[in-house]
């Protein structure tokens, strides 16, 4: 799998676990995906003003401050960021329970999830 279609893709990751951040940044680099990581959603929202908007967003659910759902909504509304992946260890979180804007391309993935699954989903979302 080369995931060529993902090369050069801009990806924002909002994840409060530093280790996972590091691992995922390396993995994305492997596929030439430009990755920017944030510890908190608030930071990502603030970055909208200054940074290039990402093509895809990956976001944890339980975060200090805003939770993943809120962050995804906020970034879509303010920055039109879509698609977005919500990656959470909380089993109870289901897409049907969340109220996401219609135009937002959105998918929930449960931890632990393989990097391939991650990339497949990103690829799927982008190609929709």
């Amino acid at each position, binding site marked *: 799998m080369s995931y060529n279609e993902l090369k050069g893709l801009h990806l924002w990751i909002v994840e409060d676990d530093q*280790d996972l951040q590091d691992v995922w940044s*390396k993995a994305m680099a492997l596929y030439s995906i430009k990755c920017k990581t944030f510890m908190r959603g608030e930071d990502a929202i603030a970055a909208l003003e200054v940074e290039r908007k990402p093509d895809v967003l990956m976001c944890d659910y339980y975060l200090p401050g*805003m939770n993943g759902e809120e962050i995804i909504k906020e970034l879509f509304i303010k920055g039109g960021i879509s698609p977005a992946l919500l990656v959470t*260890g909380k089993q109870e979180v289901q897409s049907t329970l969340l109220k996401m804007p219609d135009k937002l391309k959105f998918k929930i993935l449960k931890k632990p999830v393989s990097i391939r699954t991650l990339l497949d989903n990103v690829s799927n979302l982008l190609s929709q």
Partner: protein
Amino acid sequence: MIKKKSQNEQLTLVGIGSSAGGLQALTEFFKHCAALNNFSYVVVQHTSPNYQTMLPKLLKDTTKLRVKEAEHLEVIEEGVVYIAPSNKDIMLRGDCFELTPSENTIGPRPSVDGFFSSLSKTESFEAIGIVLSGTGNDGTQGLKELKNAGFLTISQSPDSAKYDGMPRSAISSGFTDIVLSPSELGEQLADILDNFRGLAQRSVSLERKDHSYNLVLKILKKQVQVDFSHYKEPTIRRRIQRRMLANKILTLDDYATFLTNNPSEVHTLFQDVLISVTEMFRDQVQFEELETELEDYLKRKDDGDTIRIWCAGCSSGEEAYSLAITVNEVLKKQNKNIRMTVFATDINEATMEAARKGVYSERSLESVKQSIKNEYFTKLDGHYQINKHIREMVVFARHDLTSDPPFLRVDLISCRNVFIYFGPAIQERITKIFHYSLNPKGILFLGKAEATSSIKDYFQPSQSHSRVYRKLPKKSDGTISFGTLKIDHQPKFITSKTGKRDSLKVIKPYIKSIAPTSLLLDSDFTLLQIFGSAQEYISLSEGAASLKLDDLILEPYKKRLMPALLKSRRLKQNANKVCISSQQDPKKVFIDIFYIEDPIEPQIIVSFSEKVEEVDESTTPPDSDFDSYSEMRELQQELLHTREQLNLVVEEQETSNEELQALNEEMQSANEELQSTNEELEVSNEELQSTNEELTTLNEELNSKSNELVLVNRKLNNVIETIDDPVIVVDSSLRLSSFNRSAEKMFDLKRDPTKNSELAVAFLKYSSGVNLVNLASKCLRSKSVETMTVNIEQRVFFAKAQPILGNQNEVEGVVFSLNDNTDLENALSRLQGSERQLKEIFEHSPASVSVKDLTGKYTYANSNFLKLHGKKEEEVIGRDDYQLFSFEEAARVKDIEIEALRSKRAMMREETYKVGERTENFYSYRFRLLDKDGKPYGLCVMSFTVTELVSTKHELQLFRDIVSSSKSCSLIFFENAEETERRGHPYFLTNYVSDNIEQMLGVPARNFVNKDFFNFFSHIVGRRKDQKILRLIKSIKNEGLEWVEIKGMDGEDGPRWYELRSSFVPGRKGKPDGFHLILNDITEKKLEERNQKQHQAEILKSARLASLGEMAAGISHELNTPLQTIQSSAELLELSAQAGEDVKEQALFMSEKIIDTVGKISGIIKSLRSLAKMDETLTSETVEVRKLLLQVKEATAYYFKNAGIELRFECSEDVSIVCRPRQIEQVVINLLTNAVDAVKKQEEKWVKLQLLNQDKTIKILVEDNGPGVPDSLKSQIMTPFFTTKKEGTGLGLSLTSSIVEEHRGYMRIDCSGGTTIFEIELPKECDEL
């Protein structure tokens, strides 16, 4: 009178009044009646009020006209004969009849007068009034009114009437125009009316241009001096028509001519005219003038005086009564008590009869003021009658002014409209008579017609043109006489002539010179003067002294002289010499008579001269002839003289007769008064006679009474004698008057009254005599019965002195009676003793005692009774319960007492009465009191107040009821000190056990009473547990045990449990110690408690499991992230390797990451273990709280982190408590997770965990800045399964609080500081766990 309707249309209504004999007259009338067109008849026939008149049927056949009975409000039609129904008065109102129930219950009904009166007012009809046969005078008054109104009036001729009373009355009243028999009347009625109408027609057509009318008035004015031109013309015209009708004259011109030729007709006309104005107070203005004059005049009269009034020409009396009323009004105004007599005279006696009755129609009273009407008139049957007191003042008498002598000394003469009947000469004479009759300044009241010029000579008008005159102080005209002979009224006083004597001096010598002996006489032949010696000719004869010559002159001269004198006086000339010679004495005496003329007092001188020889041939007749000649001449002269004297006497007698007549008239009127007085006297006489009879009867009765008295007296004496006790009667000076045998014996009295004259002496034989004398004198003074007790010879006597009172309440004597009282006295004193004793007993009895007689009246009440009811003895004795107490109380008591009176035994009752404001309870005993015959004569009531007793009883019962109805049993124990001493341990006996102990222990309460403490408790804890019971009682007595739970004997479901509450009451003032026990069976409660605990534990367990699940869910999530890291790292290695990259460096980096992550995971697992431990067995241990809290912090750290909430941990105290640490951990975790949930939505989120060390407790505070707990939820949040969250079991806080309670701690919520603080306070030591 004549309306606008043409003559032909005018309906003539003929009113016919009849009474007895009326049917015959009516039949006759209608049979001949030709007046049919435009006529209707109303027959008013007197009938019996109870009798339906048959008249319509009877008359039907006599006439062609319709005959019917008149109906109320029936409109009058032409050609109908209406019959007035019986017992109704018929009136005419407009063109209808009005029938009213007859007002008049005495007079005849229906009233003819009433109908005629209403008919006279008609404006719709021509009217005719006819009076037919009948008795009485009904209809007369009516005719008068009809005539006054200008209608034709007709009467049946009295000779044709069966009963002529009514027609005669009508005719004599002068109000009848035509008199005819019924048949003539029937035939001619139409013609008569036509004639009447024709006159009216013409007179109307001529109207004002009528010179004849004015001519008639002129004639009237000329003849009667009354100007009628200002009178109502229609009235006058009607009068004239009437006269024309009566004289059958058709035109006024003819009538005027007729008048001119017949002066008498003028008066008739005038009279006719005046009739219309005959009424009470005619000419009001004149009466007012009279009143003013009277006021002035009457001022001179005083109380008791009399005022005499003469009403000359009173006619039907209106004038007389008007005068009487006027004078009476003035007298009233002046407040004078003056008797008034009014002589009302008239020449016509017929009208006087009506005048005496004083009944007048309403019309004639028109000008009478209402006030006068009310005061002086009584209304009867549509007419008015003058009240009796005025009628009595007026005396009616027949009197002819022209001939009869007047009433004298009158104060007021009224003569109005009378002079018209008289010529001027008579008028003047009457004027003079009035002047003569009146008292000085008397009043003359004249009418318009009395205008003779002569009046002013005698009277002065009070004002100019007034008809009220005052008598002028002028000498009455002496020439008037009341007969045909003029009487010389010149005074004949001698003294009046003395003045003239001076003139005699002149002629005296002259007289002497001619004839020495002369007599001067006045015209009455009274001797005035004597000249010379006249004793030869005159002498004073026996009898009354007189200066009349007739009496003085000697007999020989008298015969010749007197006729000569008379002749001389008559002829007013000197007489011839008269020669008189007596036969005894040869000398001749010549008498000369000289008539001295004087206009006032003619005098006569008689001269005597004696000529002895001187004989004149010429005058001396020859002797022989002389004698016979002179004799004859003398006789002739004497005859003449006698004749003259006779004439004189006759004339004088006539005068006397006339005077007598006048007196007679006065007598006559006085007689009327006397007659009425006589009647009164007769009545009085009758009364006296009956009184006399009564007196006779009374006398007879008295006689028999007297006989009875004698008998009674005899009986009395015998009675006194038979009395065993001494009886003595004394008089007022204490002298013995009678006594009986017993007294005689006792006091040694003698039957001989002379020896017993002094009572004192008789009594003084004994020492007590003094007392008796004193008693007697006391009785005399007090005039009432006096008693005393005296001892005579060892016996006790009850002495009684009774006064004998006379009519004037004076004491005439005293009766003594002495009763031997010894036995009675002894019995009485014994009785008094026992009575006193009894009374003492009653008075000091605690009960209230009262005795009533059979009528319910109190005869005795003791002091307690009086005190209880707050009354005084005198208020109670003699009254009954109804007077003393309220009706209800008394009525209730009455029934009970009647029962008690019937009952043989004393009746006991418990009663409740209101005594004043309080309600008191009594035990009352009622028993009847019997007299010696065994008959009840009274009722004794003894009452004990038991109010407190009863209320205590009630309270006790209430207490018992309350205790019994509660589940708790109550017991009271008292210590038996002796036994305690003896046994060496507290020994209590049961004093009271509530009844419900039976339910609890199955043993009746009475089994426990007065048993010892052990006995009772053995029923609870079982036998042979005395040590345990002793411990219990000791702890109650000594340690004051208040509450304890006791495990009792086993029951069906295991042991019974009892709760015991005790209160110890130490004995005071020698009373034993006691205590009160309250015993509750709490077995059920215990069981329930145990069940509840089990249930709670189950809940707790499930709650813990649930919270474990929650925790596990969180942990699983937490684990997923490191797992992700590991997975991703491994995958990255794999991917890198696949990509052919150098993974060595990568691998190092990744493995390091994996190892770190694994460490993390093991930490999480570790904390998971600690949670798992919570379910371990709950054991208490001493725990460092800070450490415990740190563990909690760690276990929940991830939770806070995930939620992004800051946990402020402020636990620095080092303190240990005994607790179940897992449970406490769970409490804190619960609170923290709650706090996290609470703050999640806040902008700034924090939770603070705090530990506070206190004296015996610690406090763990969990504070958050969430919105807090609403007050409404505070009470609910602790209950299981209550939650406000979407997720969660709702067990959190209830679990928490149950754990805290298990640790004997408290949990509170405080939201007051803007934050929410859950505070848990736990004791450091806790035994119960």
